[in-house]
């Protein structure tokens, strides 16, 4: 069940558009921030709020990569491996995380703290290699910098 605050935020999103359906992307992200990932029950609840057939909302949730259809760790580490980052050895950063956390790409640590993903260009090519952890960008990455960042993630 979504909280009263989440429902309130979804209603605010609806007010931005002439059609309720347009708020589906905002609503999915509001729900994801609260619940971590999107379950079938949550999708049904949102579909009801937006007067949308559930199948249409499922299509939206399935299409966009940022909606988590499966649980992810408390910290979702997303390393860009597109061209600018890969030229500056982002693969090494991915491998370093993999070794350091004992998980492969796409996996979550057993304590549910970290999920490691490889992602497409995040629009920060001038400061490659870079990554995103939850909502924040981390740029000009090195092994030492990654170690420092990991220390701050409690």
């Amino acid at each position: 069940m979504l909280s009263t605050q989440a429902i309130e935020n979804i209603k605010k999103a609806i007010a931005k558009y002439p059609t309720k359906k347009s708020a589906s992307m905002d609503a999915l992200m509001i729900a994801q921030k609260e619940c971590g990932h999107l379950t079938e029950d949550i999708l049904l609840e949102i579909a009801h709020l937006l007067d949308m057939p559930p199948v249409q909302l499922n299509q939206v949730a399935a299409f966009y990569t940022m909606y988590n259809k499966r649980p992810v760790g408390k910290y979702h580490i997303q390393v860009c491996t597109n061209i600018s980052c890969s030229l500056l050895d982002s693969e090494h950063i991915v491998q370093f995380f993999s070794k350091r956390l004992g998980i492969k790409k796409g996996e979550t640590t057993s304590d549910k703290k970290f999920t490691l993903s490889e992602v497409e260009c995040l629009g920060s090519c001038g400061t490659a290699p870079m990554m995103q952890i939850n909502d924040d960008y981390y740029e000009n990455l090195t092994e030492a910098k990654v170690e420092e960042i990991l220390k701050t993630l409690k």
Partner: protein
Amino acid sequence: MEPNLLKNINTPDSHRIDVYIKNGGYQALPAALKMQTDALIQMVKDSGLRGRGGAGFSTGLKWSFITKDPTIAKYLCCNADEGEPGTFKDRIIIEKDPHQLIEGMAVACYAIGAHAAYIYIRGEFDFGARRLEQAISEAHQKGYLGKNILGTNFNCDIYVHKGAGAYICGEETALIESIEGKRGQPRIKPPFPAQVGLFAKPTVINNVETLACITHIINKGPKWFASIGPEKSPGPKIVGVSGHVKKPGLYELPMETPLREVIFTHAGGIRDGRKFKAAIPGGVSAPMLTEKDLDTTMDFDGMAAKGTMLGSAGVIVMDDTTCIVKVAMRTMGFFRHESCGKCTPCREGTDWTYKVLHRIEHGQGKDGDVELLEKLCGNIFGRTFCPLGDGAVMALRGALKNFKEEFLYHVKNKRCMV
């Protein structure tokens, strides 16, 4: 050239409205509101401004396609999806100078008769989206947005719409579908968005940097803008340089700056004493150029003459240690991931070419694979709804044209030649 678009970015608190106003901001909007909309559109036409998203279409002409009928609702969409790999110019405007964009959008709305605008920002730019929300709220408080703007009868609201990780939503009709709360799959054109766009109403879609140019055109005049760079694609241009250079970053340069000057003067040349091998001039969809093309100028027509494109002017520089087969494989991996799945040639073609490139890169290439890639390119190009498939083919053809021997060497020797 003195910076225009990037002039505020190093000022402390440049994102705040007071700082923007102190630096000369919100003078263009009152000036525009005193003009007839036809004269305003003519002014933008006269400046020669062409869309900075990559297609390079005349901005004034695009605005002029919108009906003047006041009974029909119209929309402006700002394309802040910035997904083309190698491109990172719009993010800086959004984060460091959001009012430059918002003022430009208010002017554009007035010109086309729109009372609502949406900024479609990629979902990953969470910080940027928050900055925009804050800036919009500041502009409302000061009376630059909302009802009866600056005592006129012009009303305008701007809303932020966050994407959620889909490159295809940078394509204008997919962007519209996404704002309507659907999967971001392109529509067939015609009808063009100027007739049937967002919520089936006439709609203009402009890139962030395009809209950021508007205030400068009004403040300094269309002649000033048109006097910078070449006659047919004038103006200042933000060029982003990434990859194997000493000083990666953003540089605001006049259109027509030679690629050599961009890489070797502004970006400081190649790192670690290595040699230049190739550069992708305008985001990964733009075919790569080599040493012989370094004197090509960075503008729409200069790049087109060399069979590539200015695109987003996101220059990716590669040194002599770069394996072009690997770059091609990674690029095609990107397009395969981002194909929306609507058109078969793109959906299947990007997947097939990726698989062929993957086996060549991993020492399992077969005789005839390079020819197969060329054939696949021909079966994707021009056979899809939107330019994603074309972009994928252009990138691959650029690599094959300039470095065919590297692909053949990989197939024959099962390893890389660099």
